């Protein structure tokens, strides 16, 4: 996982990324290609996203705190 230097447009773009990921990761036809995202991998991505978002919001809080109590 790369650090929180990610996607300033996670919200606010015409299509919210989270709506798109719901569909492209859990929707669509699953056919057995030579490489196909398995269900376990989709779960993995979702867990990673949650962890990433949590770490970003944690970081933001830490930054807010440091502004309040320099």
């Amino acid at each position, binding site marked *: *996982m*790369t650090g929180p*230097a*990610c*996607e300033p447009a*996670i*919200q606010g773009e015409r*299509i*919210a*990324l*989270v*709506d*798109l*990921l*719901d*569909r*492209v*990761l*859990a*929707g*669509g*036809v*699953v*056919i*057995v*290609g*030579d*490489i*196909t*995202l398995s*269900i376990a*991998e*989709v*779960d*993995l*991505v*979702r867990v*990673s*996203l*949650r962890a*990433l*978002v*949590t770490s970003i*919001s944690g970081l933001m809080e830490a930054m807010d705190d440091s502004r309040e109590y320099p």
Partner: protein
Amino acid sequence: MAAEGGWVWLYGVAGGDLGAFADGVAGVGGAPLRTITAARLTAIVGDVGDREYGEAALRRNLEDLDWLARTARAHHAVLEAVAERGPVVPMRLATLFASDAGVTGTLQERAEDFREALSLISARSEWGVKAYAVKPSDPAGESGHQVAGREDQATGPGAAYLQRRRAQLTASKDARQEALASARAVYAELGRFAVSSRLYPPQAPDLAGQQTPMVLNAAYLVADERAGEFEAAMADLTARHRFVQLTLTGPWPAYSFVGESDGPGPR
């Protein structure tokens, strides 16, 4: 044919000849789009390199939100452009073949499934409907404050605080119950205008970029000729249900109505 050491990325499958399509739309990894036809079906594909899209690289890159976002958007942009010309069955993200022959084989083996899916989504579109529980602006309400005021004189500030806190908790619990009831009602009501519907798990508030909890995350397959009615119903429901905030997204390519219900997503 995929270049040596490359992969064929499959976006989706359409029926018949697409003609010119997706002009100026770059595919995943910036690769130009092309088609593979077999069994009177057309697969929309692009060629991607092994260094970024091979099995090991994919596993790593899927963990990178930036990469994932870019790739998901590119996959979607292609499907959206193709959908403008007619029905297209979207593939799940990252469906890759070592060569064109694998795609051709899949078209032949799954021809009936693809045709069935194409006929289901033809002249229909997917719409997304989400509902958020509305945060009560003043949970205790005015009467709560009056009660608290009286308590203040009778039994002191500690008891008044507890009573106020209880009233707040009750109000916010009630609001949550009301929001869930509204979500169920909205889901059922909109179903009357749809051919089919699916529920996704509610998005976590952090991911959804909303402060309030999501109580409904649904997708509907709606006949294009009824899209106006569907939107009117949304407006009507928005006015009637004050404990939820409703949002509508779409039209989407029919991601949620072509797959097996095998995943953590739509059921």
